């Protein structure tokens, strides 16, 4: 070819103008895009660590089970402890659990009483009523009574599993507050209207609490920590007007069952301190206004009841205090006067915390809580905590499965794994001691709720991939169009080139693929021109 005419060469002969090189460049671009895509996807995607799904699923099916060891000894003449024990074991196993053992033992076997997790039933004729003390039950055994065996079985069943035996199990469940390792206990003396006179200006709660409530707090120490606060309010108006009732010619005031549900006027009464996230149990001593005394609680038929207190499920308890009518002026509630009120609070507290009552016919020797009750509560709480933890774990797994944008970080994964191992430990410890099992189960519960409420799990919930793409569209759209067009054009050229090669077989096709057939060339008369590569 003549290149001297304009001093330039035919561009199609330039080494970088070869179709092969061009295709290589194009391929390199595409390779880069394809390599970068996963990297881009990875850097903009959220961290979702795998959770141990199968373990969680397996764990949720497990049930915590406590073996019960009962020792039986008899001080009554003519009673075969072995036979009674066998009979008892058979009857209780069918009612409670297959993991129940009743072993006859000697009367003065000292090692039994110190053995953890076991109970001792002493049959005797020296007591009038059954008496519990620590883990020992002294049971009156009458040889002549034919139902003696079933009575004992009933007592034991009620002591060991008080919740299933409870008459109003459903209602009871509803009252008991959710488990927390720390409770705030707030005692409040509320005067409906101290300015009306004859109101309680202070109370000696400190001394009374020390005497009456402290033993209970101490006994429940293994389960809960308690923070105690008390306050007095001088203006605590009710949100409604109590009903006036005429009783034997004198006017009294009454609270209907509907009134009780709206009794606490949380808008006006500042009851909680607000510095804590722990659940608060409130105990209110309400002194009605001087104009609305005495204030009684009515039943649904509208007649007076003898009760002056009521429990608000999972919230606390209220006691209404009507000062004696002869009271003149404002007064102070003395510690001795509180002796009749605080036992009601104590009773309400025990109900709210789910401490079982002793079955009828059984008395506690010192009036304090026995090991039977505390253990029953421990077993119940361990059971609840384990179930709750299992459910929460199940929910976490389900939630993570359902919401694909939910991040799962290292701490969530670790909490879930730790909770699983804590649950395992709880199941193992249940065989040894209810206290240990309870400790592990409450740890499992704390871990699962921490994992469930992990703030990191919400981080990118509202940043879907559509947004990610939308932000980059101005870049992607304008960059990909030339890339795609170049590929299509190159492909078309390649097909055309193949076709021409097949039909003519002419060797000199250097420019065939690049020139339209209509164009005729004179190689002596060329210019090179660079134009935009658009048709």
């Amino acid at each position, binding site marked *: 070819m003549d290149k001297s005419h304009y001093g330039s060469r035919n561009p199609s002969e330039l080494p970088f103008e070869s179709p092969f090189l061009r295709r290589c460049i194009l391929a390199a671009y595409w390779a880069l895009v394809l390599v970068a895509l996963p990297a881009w996807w990875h850097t903009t995607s959220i961290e979702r660590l795998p959770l141990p799904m199968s373990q969680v699923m397996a764990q949720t099916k497990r049930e915590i089970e406590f073996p019960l060891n009962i020792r039986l000894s008899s001080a009554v003449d003519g009673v075969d402890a072995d036979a009674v024990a066998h009979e008892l074991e058979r009857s209780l196993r069918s009612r409670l659990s297959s993991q129940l053992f009743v072993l006859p033992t000697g009367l003065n076997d000292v090692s039994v009483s110190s053995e953890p997790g076991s109970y001792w039933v002493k049959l005797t004729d020296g007591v009038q009523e059954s008496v519990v003390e620590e883990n020992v039950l002294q049971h009156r055994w009458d040889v002549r009574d034919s139902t003696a065996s079933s009575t004992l079985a009933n007592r034991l069943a009620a002591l060991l599993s008080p919740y299933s035996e409870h008459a109003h199990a459903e209602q009871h469940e509803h009252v008991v507050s959710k488990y927390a390792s720390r409770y705030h206990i707030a005692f409040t003396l509320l005067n409906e209207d101290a300015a009306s006179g004859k109101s309680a200006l202070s109370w000696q709660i400190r001394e009374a609490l020390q005497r009456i409530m402290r033993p209970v707090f101490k006994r429940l120490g293994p389960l809960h920590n308690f923070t105690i606060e008390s306050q007095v309010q001088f203006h605590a108006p009710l949100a409604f007007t109590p009903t006036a009732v005429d009783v034997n010619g004198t006017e009294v005031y009454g609270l209907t069952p509907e009134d009780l549900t709206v009794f606490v006027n949380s808008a006006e009464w500042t009851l909680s301190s*607000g510095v804590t996230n722990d659940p608060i149990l409130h105990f209110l001593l309400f002194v009605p206004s001087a104009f609305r005394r005495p204030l009684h609680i009515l039943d649904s038929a509208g007649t007076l009841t003898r009760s002056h207190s009521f429990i608000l499920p999972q919230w606390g308890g209220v006691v209404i205090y009507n000062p004696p009518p002869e009271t003149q002026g404002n007064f102070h509630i003395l510690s001795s006067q509180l002796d009749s009120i605080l036992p009601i609070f104590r009773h309400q507290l025990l109900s709210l915390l789910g401490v079982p009552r002793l079955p009828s016919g059984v008395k506690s020797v010192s009036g304090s809580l026995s090991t039977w009750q505390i253990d029953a509560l421990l077993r119940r709480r361990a059971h609840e905590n384990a179930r709750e933890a299992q459910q929460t774990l199940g929910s976490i797994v389900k939630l993570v499965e359902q919401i694909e944008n939910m991040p799962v970080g290292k701490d969530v994964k670790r909490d879930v794994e730790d909770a699983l191992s804590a649950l395992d430990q709880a199941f193992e410890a249940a065989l040894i001691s209810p206290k240990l099992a309870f400790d592990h189960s409450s740890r499992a519960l704390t871990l699962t709720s921490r994992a469930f409420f992990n703030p990191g799990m919400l981080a990118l919930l509202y940043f879907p991939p559509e947004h990610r793409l939308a932000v980059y569209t*101005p870049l992607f759209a304008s960059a990909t169009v030339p890339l795609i067009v170049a590929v299509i054009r190159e492909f078309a050229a390649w097909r055309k080139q193949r076709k021409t090669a097949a039909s003519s077989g002419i060797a000199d096709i250097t420019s065939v693929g690049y020139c339209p057939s209509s164009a005729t060339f004179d190689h002596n008369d060329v210019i090179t021109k660079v134009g935009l590569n658009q048709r």
Partner: protein
Amino acid sequence: MIFSWRILPATLLLYVLGTLASPTSETFQEELTLRPLRDGKVISRFSFTTLREGAVPRNPELLEAKDIPQYYTLFPLGLGQVLREYAASELHLSLNSGKWDYEGWGYPGEQEVGTGAQLWAWISDGGSATVDERWKGLRNALAGLFCASLGSLDDQRTTSPKLAFVPVGDLPAWKLPHQLRHATLPSENVCTENLTPFLKLLPCKGISGIAGLLNPHRLFDADWHGMSVHVSWREGRGIEVRLAFQAVFDPVRLSIDKKRDWSLQSIFDKSIRKACPVASSSRIVVELPKNEAYAIDPKPSIVQEGFAVYDTSHVEKDLDISLRWPLESVFSYPLDPPLQPLSPLSVQRILKGTSQSRGQLSVSIRNTLPSEVQAVYLETMPWHVQFYLHTLKILVNGHARDDPLSDIAYTPPVPHGRPALLESVLRLPPNSTTQLDMDVMKSFLRYTEHPPDAQRGWDLPPAVLVPLVNSTSFVASGASTLLGNDMSRRPRIYTRTLLVDLATPDFSMPYNVIIMSCTLIALTFGMVFNLMTRRFVVVKLRETPGRNEVPMEKTE
């Protein structure tokens, strides 16, 4: 109580002894002061004091220990728990709205009158939680307690001045020293939602006693209103909480016939119906006009040194105090002769300059006293405005001088982190006007740092001037032992807040930037890509008759 000591374990006993003295008795006092002003307005100041005798602030070193039971009677439980939780020894919170006119109204009974929210606390070091951690917890807890945006008093607003905020009470002598944390939020508004929790902290709430007069409809209609909470401890006495509400009413505005006569009913729209049964002292003090004919009704319990005192510990029938000027048919503002300012010191602070990058801060302090006054001047500035300290010029009565300023302490601001603190002692010559001028730079904020309604600008906190004299000389009219417990303390004068206009961006900017940069990248990419894959071909120019130039190009 002896009984309970015995059954406590020894460690707990030590702890109890260390933090809480024997059973505490609590007393509650309430007082309302009403002061008619010469411009026809009336200052009302409510003060509710609860003293928890024998109580001691909590030592932060014992914060981890088991919490001992807390028994409160009159002391507000909500506030008590916050103080215990964060072991604050002394605390002062004020929420004000409006600009206090020192010259027209005199020195206020409640001295913390800076616009917006101000919180300062003395917190002891010690324990595992640092002072700053507890300060953060404290302001968040108070934000929750008073429904105010105190949570935003963060590190960008917290300073520790050395001279201006001395403790009001005593500080317990623990092993580690106490530290001051002070923060202001001038843009905070005060309203009913702050008053409701405030009233709930009072033993008689807003139902009986003097607090029954606190009617939000009238208080927040007042020309100036503000509430404050002060907690302090005095050795041998106990922890004292003082809740105060101060408002400046304009009876002339409220009256139909343009008279300045007022009564409790006319300004609060309420009267005192019932006494608070637990108040150990309850009284209303009315300052009587001087050199004027007036009538006050009903007859006060005591009249003393120009003050009428009403004892409200027992109220038989509705008490509605009224003060009338019977000889005056219409109140006219006294214009002639020129009014003497009621405050001997007055401060004016302005920010000059129109640009969004530079400005000049100009403070003018006038001393009308015949003697020299030393005063601490405190300027806490968010980092949005930065001082050029070298440009500081001082003019006394128009003459440049260097000597009035001494003991300059300056903490430079850290952008996005810490505010600036300028504290120094000024010597104000007698009967003089001292002017301080300083250039300032306005910062350029990040996109996310702008508040909602960014175009409004930023409120700058008030500067504080603390004359190093006691307040007796500052209360203009009849300083009396009857009035207030503030007399022994140093007064504190707040300047007005400033509004600074910072450069605000167009808030659609990020999207514009994304699109702009994407377009540029796409253009560059397109060019490079085209050059690399371009095909160059030879095109013949055909000589056609009549058309001698046919530019031919061939591209594909």
